[in-house]
C-alpha cells in the first residue's frame, strides 16, 4: 500500500498526489513512469513520474481524470492509500548537454515535461519551453517550468492565455523566426506529439516524443502498448517510452489507443451507478 501524503487540485479535473514510495523515490529518473492499480478490482495503468524526493521518500503523480481508474485515483484523500505502484519503469531520458533544447508539453503532459526540462537545464542546456492547454484555467506547472526554462512560451487553444493556438504552432513560428534547436522533446496528447513531429521533420530537427499508449503489465509481457517505429514493432513500456518522433507511426498509435473506448465508457458508467447506490 502506498500512502498519499499530499493532494492538490491543480486545475479542474487535474490532480496532484504526493505518495510515500521510498524505494521508487530513490531510483526514479526523468522520463520514467509507474504502473498503478488503485484497488482490488482496478486496472493497471501508467503515469509518468512528475517529481520525486528521496529525502522524504515521496513521488509525485499528476493526472487528468478521464476514465474510471483516474476518477478512482482522484477520489482518494490524503492519508488513504493506493493498492499497487510498480516502478520506476521505462528507459530514462538521455540527459546530456545538447545545446539548445526545446521542451514542449501539452495539457497534463506538462507534468511529464517538467522533470525532463529540469534535467536538461541542470545538464547545461539552454532550455526553451513551450507549454499549452485548452484554456487558461487548465494550464498547469507554469511556475515550475519557468524555474528551469531560459524562455517559456504559453499557448491556449482558445487564446485565454498566451498565444492562441497549439504548442506546435508556437514551435513552428519559432523555427520560422530562425531559432535553432539541437533537440526538441515533446510530451502530451498523441495528436499534439504528431503535430510537433510534423513541424520539425522538414527542418530535420532531432525530436523525441514520450508515448503514452494503453498498457497492462508495463514490463514487456503483453504487447498491448506496441507501436510501429521505423517500420518495426516496438513495445513502449520496455523499448520506450521515448522514441524518435519522425519514426513513429502516429496514425496506428491513435487508432490503437481507441481500442476500448466503448468499454471505458461503460466501466465509468457502471462505477458511477454503483457509487450512487452505495451513497
Amino acid at each position, binding site marked *: 500500500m502506498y500512502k498519499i501524503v499530499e493532494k492538490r487540485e491543480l486545475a479542474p479535473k487535474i490532480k496532484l498526489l504526493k505518495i510515500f514510495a521510498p*524505494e*521508487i523515490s530513490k*531510483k526514479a529518473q526523468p522520463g520514467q513512469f509507474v504502473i498503478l*492499480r488503485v484497488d482490488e*478490482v*482496478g*486496472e*493497471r495503468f501508467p503515469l509518468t513520474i512528475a517529481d520525486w524526493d528521496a529525502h522524504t521518500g515521496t513521488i509525485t503523480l499528476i493526472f487528468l481524470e478521464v476514465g*474510471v*481508474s483516474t476518477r478512482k485515483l482522484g477520489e482518494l484523500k490524503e492519508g488513504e492509500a493506493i*493498492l*499497487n*505502484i*510498480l*516502478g*520506476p*519503469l521505462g528507459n530514462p531520458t538521455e540527459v546530456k548537454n545538447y545545446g539548445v533544447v526545446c521542451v514542449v508539453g501539452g495539457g497534463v503532459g506538462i507534468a511529464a515535461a517538467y522533470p525532463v526540462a529540469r534535467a536538461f537545464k541542470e545538464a547545461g542546456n539552454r532550455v526553451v519551453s513551450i507549454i499549452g492547454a485548452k484554456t487558461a484555467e487548465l494550464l498547469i506547472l507554469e511556475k515550475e517550468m519557468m524555474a528551469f526554462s531560459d524562455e517559456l512560451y504559453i499557448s491556449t487553444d482558445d487564446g485565454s492565455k498566451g498565444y492562441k493556438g497549439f504548442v506546435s504552432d508556437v514551435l513552428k513560428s519559432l523555427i520560422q523566426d530562425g531559432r535553432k534547436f539541437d533537440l526538441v522533446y515533446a510530451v502530451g496528447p498523441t495528436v499534439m506529439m504528431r503535430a510537433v513531429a510534423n513541424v520539425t521533420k522538414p527542418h530535420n530537427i532531432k525530436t523525441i516524443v514520450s508515448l503514452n499508449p494503453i498498457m*497492462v*503489465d508495463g*514490463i*514487456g*509481457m*503483453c*504487447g*498491448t502498448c*506496441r*507501436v*510501429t517505429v521505423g517500420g518495426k*514493432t516496438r*513495445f513502449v513500456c*520496455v523499448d520506450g517510452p521515448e522514441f524518435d518522433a519522425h519514426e513513429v507511426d502516429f*496514425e*496506428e498509435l491513435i*487508432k*490503437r489507443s*481507441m*481500442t*476500448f473506448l466503448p*468499454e*471505458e465508457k*461503460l*466501466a465509468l458508467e*457502471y*462505477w458511477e451507478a454503483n457509487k450512487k447506490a452505495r451513497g
Partner: protein
Amino acid sequence: MSKWDRFKAVPMPKQPPEVRIHNFDEVALGYSEEQAIMEAERCLQCSNPQCIPGCPVGIDIPAFIKLLRKGEFREAIRKIKEKNSLPAICGRVCPQEDQCQKNCLLGRKGDPVQIGRLERFLADWELSHGVEIPEKSPSTGKRVAIIGAGPAGLTAAADLAKLGHEVVVFEALHEPGGVLMYGIPEFRLPKRIVKAEIDYVKKLGVNIKTDTLIGRLYTIPELLKDEGFNAVFIGTGAGPPIFMEIPGENLCGIYSANEFLIRVNLMKSYLFPKWDTPIKVGDRVAVIGAGNVAMDSSRCALRLGAKEVHIVYRRSRAEMPARKEEVENAEEEGVLFDFLTLPVAYHGDEKGWVKKMECIRMQLSEPDESGRRRPIPIKGSNFLMDVDTVIVAIGRRPNPLIQQTTPGLKVAKDGTIIVDENMRTNIEGVYAGGDIVTGEATVISAMGAGRRAAKSIHEYLMNLSR
C-alpha cells in the same frame, strides 16, 4: 460406479461441455475419495518403478500411492510434499502423460495409473482438511533473493526456507504466482488453489515482495552488495510475446496470447465491468498456434461469447504441441481446427480494426531439426478468412531485463541465461532456472530447476565463511 479394471483408468468427472462454455469454473472436478482409492488400487507397486525417474522433482510416487489406497491421506500428501511444495497446481497442469505416467507398466497394455489426478486429489484433500506446515531447520543467518514468484522461484524459495535460510521473493506483478496467475485460466487452474499453495510457501517463512521489478528498482549487483543478500536466484521466466511480423499485425482486435490471457486471468476481465479491465472478443476468433497457450486462449474466447473460434496452425494435427487432454477439451467445447494454414497478412477497416486474415495453405515435407515434418507454403493458395479477433499464440522470448542490467552475466544468443548443471551462472552466488534458462517449457520443469538450484544454493551458502 463402473467396474474396476486393472487396465482402465477411473474417469475424471468433468463439467459437460455445453455447460462449461458458459462459465469460468473448473472443468475437471477431481476424484472423490472412493474414485481416488479405486484408481490407486491399479498401481502395481513395481520394485523398480519407472514413474519416479519421469518426475522432474523426483516424488516417491509408489510410496504415496500405497499410502493413499490405505486411506492414509495425511501421510500420503506428506510424502508428496517432501519433494513438491505445490502439488495442487502440479496435479492439474503437469503433462503427466509425458513424464511420470509415460513409462508406467500398465500403460503398455492399457491406461497408465493417473498419477496426476491422485496427486491433485491428495493436495485438494489437504487444502480442505488443513495444511500442515513442516518443521524448518534452524536459521542459518544467510539471505537469498529470488527474482520472480513463478513456479521456479516459488519452489526454490520453499526449499531454501525449509533449510533455514531467509528468503525474499521479488515479484514484478501485483500478485505472486507468475504464469500460474496470469497465464493459465481459472477453468484449468482456479486462482484460489494457486493462492492457497502460495500461502503455504509464505507460511514456511518466505517473504514475497510484489510490485518490485528487479533490474529497475534494484539490480543484482545491488542485491548482493547493498541489500545484504548472500545469493540470488533468477526465475524471471518467459516475457515478450513473439509476433509473426506480417502486415497488419498491429490492427485493433489482434492480441498476443499473453495480453489476452493477462487481461482475462490476472485482471479478471471476464468479470468486466465489475472488474475494471476490459476485453473485447468478436464473433469470429482466430487463434494462431497450437500449443497449450493457444488452447487456453481459444477456450477463454468461447467463454467470452465468441460464436466461432478457430485454431489456425501451419502444421497438422499430429505435430500439435498442446497436451492431448487440452486439445480434447477444446474440441469438445466446439473449437474448430484449421490445419496446414498460415496467416500471411491482416486486413482492416478504416478505423483500424482487423476484418480479414489472409492465409496460405501449407503442405508437409521432410522432418526438420525438431523432428516434425516441415510445413511448406503451397504457391497461389492464398485465401481470406473473416475474423474480428485474432490471438497470436506462437511463443515468447525470455525476459531481457536482468540480462541487460547485470554486467558480465553470460547469456546465450536467444537471450536465455547460461547455467551449469548446478544451475550456477558465471557470476558467483547467482543462480538461474526455469524458462529464463530453457526457453518456454512447462511448469514442472521450472519447478525441477528451482529445486536443483535450491540444493546448489544451499551447498554454496553452507560453505561461505561466516
